[in-house]
């Protein structure tokens, strides 16, 4: 048996054929590859999502390492390429499109039209709003899973997921703004990332 067949069988053994097929036929776009996006991408890749579109224009720097899924030897690399490398180390047969661009109102449709689900994982609130409004207005078949409020040392139990419309889910505590707290802590950002990743898998599973 080839390594690829073995990998596939191990996954089916854990999650069952039905979920395997639902996940492996899906395309998810992750917009922003920081503390949220880097962890969401790894979780979805491990779960067997078939294709990820990774989008970010930034590069890895020293201040990212405290909460983002990168390594010291990746400092200076594009986040898209660094994350692609890290994902392939744990999910070698996934299909990845890495796009080293800033998402704007003008390119939302062209960059995201192939995605079943768009994951908003930006840092800046106006970019978050631009992406969520843009996807909901202009990509009528696409789901969006966004995040708001995961900064600081607040209780982990305040992070939650809300379904706002048939196609729009929001994760976070909705209030903890990075500018009003001591900053971002990996564990709380990862909680929010886990909410987003799990919500995406639940949508794919038809839950």
């Amino acid at each position, binding site marked *: 048996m080839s390594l690829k067949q073995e990998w596939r069988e191990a996954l089916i053994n854990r999650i069952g054929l039905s979920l395997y097929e639902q996940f492996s036929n899906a395309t998810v776009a992750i917009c922003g590859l*920081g503390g949220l996006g880097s962890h969401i991408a790894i979780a979805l890749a491990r779960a067997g999502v078939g294709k990820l579109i990774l989008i970010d224009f930034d590069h890895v720097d020293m201040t990212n390492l405290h909460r983002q899924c990168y390594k010291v030897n990746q400092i200076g690399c594009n986040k898209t390429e660094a994350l692609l490398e890290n994902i392939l180390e744990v999910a070698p047969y996934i299909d990845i499109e890495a796009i080293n661009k800033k998402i704007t109102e003008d390119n939302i449709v062209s960059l995201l039209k192939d995605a079943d689900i768009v994951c908003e*994982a930006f840092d800046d609130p106006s970019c978050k709003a631009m992406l969520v409004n843009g996807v909901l207005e202009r990509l009528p078949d696409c789901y969006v899973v966004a995040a708001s409020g995961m900064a600081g040392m607040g209780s982990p139990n305040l992070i939650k997921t809300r379904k706002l419309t048939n196609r*729009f889910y929001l994760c976070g505590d909705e*209030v903890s703004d990075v500018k009003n707290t001591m900053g971002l802590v990996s564990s709380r950002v990862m909680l929010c990332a886990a909410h987003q990743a799990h919500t995406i898998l639940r949508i794919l599973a038809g839950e």
Partner: protein
Amino acid sequence: MVKVNGKELDIAGESISEFLKSTDYDLRVIAVERNEEIVLKSMYDKTILKDEDVVEIVSFVGGG
């Protein structure tokens, strides 16, 4: 009455733009749903709130 983020407000007849102007919301960081549909930003002026509408305003905060 119009329900906005769970609160009953006496704003039926106002447009979404008019209502937002009376609040502290920053238009650059929000998304507005009315009766579980997104309201296009270009329609905030023309969308008149009706009795029993349910409006949800999401105001994004920074961090990611």
